[in-house]
């Protein structure tokens, strides 16, 4: 068999993932082919290096509190969402009432009304633009698009 056909089996050979027949075929090829034998040695070295990449062990306390930490995170996230909704609604209502009184007041000069109206409209447009840009950035985040 040609080297190119055998080479991908070298990984399976080292990992003990080949059936006996394929394993024998690889062994026979390696005996005859110094190039593939050298490549097998290189693969062994790489596996040896990767074998040294131990995962750091964490103290037991981290695992005992794992579930409660997740539960707290979820609970807090719900809390923050509700709090944010409340703040947004209250602020919107407050701003609406403020504007209502401001524009309903006949003593406010027309120029001031136009200026405040333009200023408010500008702030709203800028805010909407920023939010839209942020949403676009989140949707097109480089690493969230990498799928299986």
């Amino acid at each position, binding site marked *: 068999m040609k080297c190119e056909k055998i080479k991908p089996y070298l990984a399976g050979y080292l990992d003990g993932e080949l059936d006996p027949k394929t394993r024998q075929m690889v062994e026979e090829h390696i005996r005859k082919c110094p190039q593939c034998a050298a490549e097998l040695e290189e693969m062994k070295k790489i596996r040896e290096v990767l074998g040294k*990449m131990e*995962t750091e062990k964490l103290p037991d306390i981290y695992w005992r509190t794992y579930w409660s930490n997740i539960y707290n995170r979820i609970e807090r996230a719900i809390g923050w969402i509700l709090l944010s909704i409340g703040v947004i609604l209250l602020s919107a209502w407050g701003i609406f009432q403020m504007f209502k009184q401001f524009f309903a007041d006949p003593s406010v000069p027309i120029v001031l009304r136009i200026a405040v109206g333009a200023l408010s409209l500008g702030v709203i447009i800028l805010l909407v633009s920023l939010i839209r840009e942020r949403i676009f950035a989140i949707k097109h985040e480089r*690493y969230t698009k990498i799928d299986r």
Partner: protein
Amino acid sequence: MKSRDIQKFRELVEANKHWAYEVAFSFVGDSMTAYDISQQAFVKVWRNFKKWKPQTGFRAWLYAILRNLCYSHLERQRRRAETDIDSVPHLAAENTDAEKSALDEEMRRVVREAILKLSPEHQDVIVLVDLNGLKYREVSEILGIPAGTVMSRLYYARRRLAELLKDYWEGNL
């Protein structure tokens, strides 16, 4: 959310928490960050729990979330490192043990950096087979590819890794 779902979710957390931590650690190489990312992943799982179809395999889903969270973290870290010169790791060798430990740590850092230079497909097989010790069949289920493809990807991934590490290990092994 029904209490049955909460119970099921808790069981999945308990059964996969160590694995999630190990996968995250393989990418980020820092225990506290890996722990935090593994928890973030489970919170994401919870948010989309109703959408999950059990027949798709939980680890496949969890792995995709973990990998994306790790990539985002590494990307943020890379951006910070570009602007903060103090964040560049340096070795402190005061005695023989510390020196050896620092060298091991340096080796792990170099290897991790090399792994991150591989394509995402190659990273997947190296992380799952070589760093987490999974069998080809398990990796095949997680990645949704045939076991034969796992083997050939692993071969090309290791070969690429050998090229990337050539200079380093000629001087150190």
